[in-house]
């Protein structure tokens, strides 16, 4: 049970170690014998992994040990990137949110999770520390495959940095046709920035649940940027979302259904972000 980040990196070095944040996802795998680590490295006693702070550049630095419940209620998260608080508040149930951490959530890298698409849309990066030092990794470069990250065995996520964007209007919508605490059929995160005259200055959209990782959708900026919000090309947004989705059939819908829903909910999310009817 390491007390510092360097101690944790040492403990993680070599084969057979499993890092645990809140342990909710890993608890499930451990319980069912789906992972059999030689040792568990619990990060919950490392004070340096906690805290949420605003940098001089307006960016938000969120410690990896922050729980989803803390994320959901933190005033700076709500003020600067409300979609992240929204996504955290809708994941699983209060008991999981009370324990599950941001770092653990990202390290688990399940493509159906809520926070990865939001962090992709927001342009966030993860601060990663290993025995050899610290590096900043964009979320797209962290999540490299189905439940697979680019972390080396001795590395752990120490914080997540969300850049500030002037005029940010960010939205996260999750579509769950089964029960609301289920993983979404598709989750759509949008981060648009809008000038005072109503013109769209920037737009990023990401999907969760419809590919081996959360994916940033290409071509959304072309459909929105430079236009007035009311002149957004929503059909192009839908088409871009559909072509980025490479889903598989499961109990949350057939591949074709998920692809269609990706387009539909992408349009709803963009509309909500641009100030249309709030369909959350």
């Amino acid at each position: 049970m390491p007390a510092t980040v360097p101690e944790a990196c040492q403990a993680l070095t070599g084969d057979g170690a499993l890092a645990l944040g809140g342990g909710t996802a890993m608890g499930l795998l451990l319980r069912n014998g789906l992972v059999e680590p030689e040792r568990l490295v619990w990060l919950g006693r490392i004070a340096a992994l906690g805290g949420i702070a605003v940098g001089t550049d307006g960016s938000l630095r969120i410690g990896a040990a922050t729980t989803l419940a803390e994320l959901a209620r933190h005033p700076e998260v709500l003020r600067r990137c409300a979609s992240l608080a929204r996504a955290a508040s809708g994941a699983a149930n209060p008991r999981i949110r009370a324990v599950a951490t941001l770092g653990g959530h990202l390290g688990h890298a399940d493509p159906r999770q809520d926070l990865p698409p939001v962090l992709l849309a927001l342009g966030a990066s993860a601060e990663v520390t290993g025995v050899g030092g610290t590096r900043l990794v964009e979320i797209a470069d962290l999540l490299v495959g189905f439940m697979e990250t680019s972390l080396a065995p001795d590395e752990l996520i120490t914080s997540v940095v969300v850049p500030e964007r002037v005029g940010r209007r960010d939205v996260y919508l999750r579509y769950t046709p089964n029960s609301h605490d289920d993983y979404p059929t598709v989750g759509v995160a949008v981060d648009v920035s809008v000038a005072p005259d109503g013109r769209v200055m920037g737009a990023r959209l990401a999907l969760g649940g419809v590919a081996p990782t959360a994916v940033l959708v290409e071509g959304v900026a072309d459909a929105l940027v430079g236009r007035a919000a009311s002149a957004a090309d929503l059909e192009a947004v839908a088409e871009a979302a559909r072509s980025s989705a490479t889903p598989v059939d499961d109990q949350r819908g057939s591949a074709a259904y998920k692809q269609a829903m990706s387009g539909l909910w992408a349009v709803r999310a963009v509309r909500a972000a641009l100030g249309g009817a709030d369909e959350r």
Partner: protein
Amino acid sequence: MRARFTLNGAPVETDVAPASMLLDLVRERGLTGTKEGCAVGICGVCTVLVDDRPVSSCLYLCGFLDGADVWTVEGLVEREPELADAFVECEGMQCGICTPGQVVAAAALRLRSPGAGAAEVREELAGNLCRCTGYETIVEAVMRYLERS
């Protein structure tokens, strides 16, 4: 590993397997009000408090217990008699399977948000599945408990 923690207010020191679950630990100590339901953190019948937070004990690793303050339904209703009273008076139960979890969830909500309104109560209880009551009487019971404490 050795773990020192408090369970329903009493100090405990015991050997635990780090990857074993808190649910089994409390039940093996005779605290069988905490049930195993889904065993995947969804249904809520195994809810206990750890450091005043509601957790699914079916997924809570004993390796985290050292230094923790754990309360089960048995300890909570003794500590706060008005909690059980409110559920009894409002008939906040039907078959009873989910009740221990609902009671612990109510205690957790009071600790976090004592002035919670009905909407927040419903939000909190959404993670504790009841398939009998339709929740009306459970929400009433939790509201009564919050008003009295």
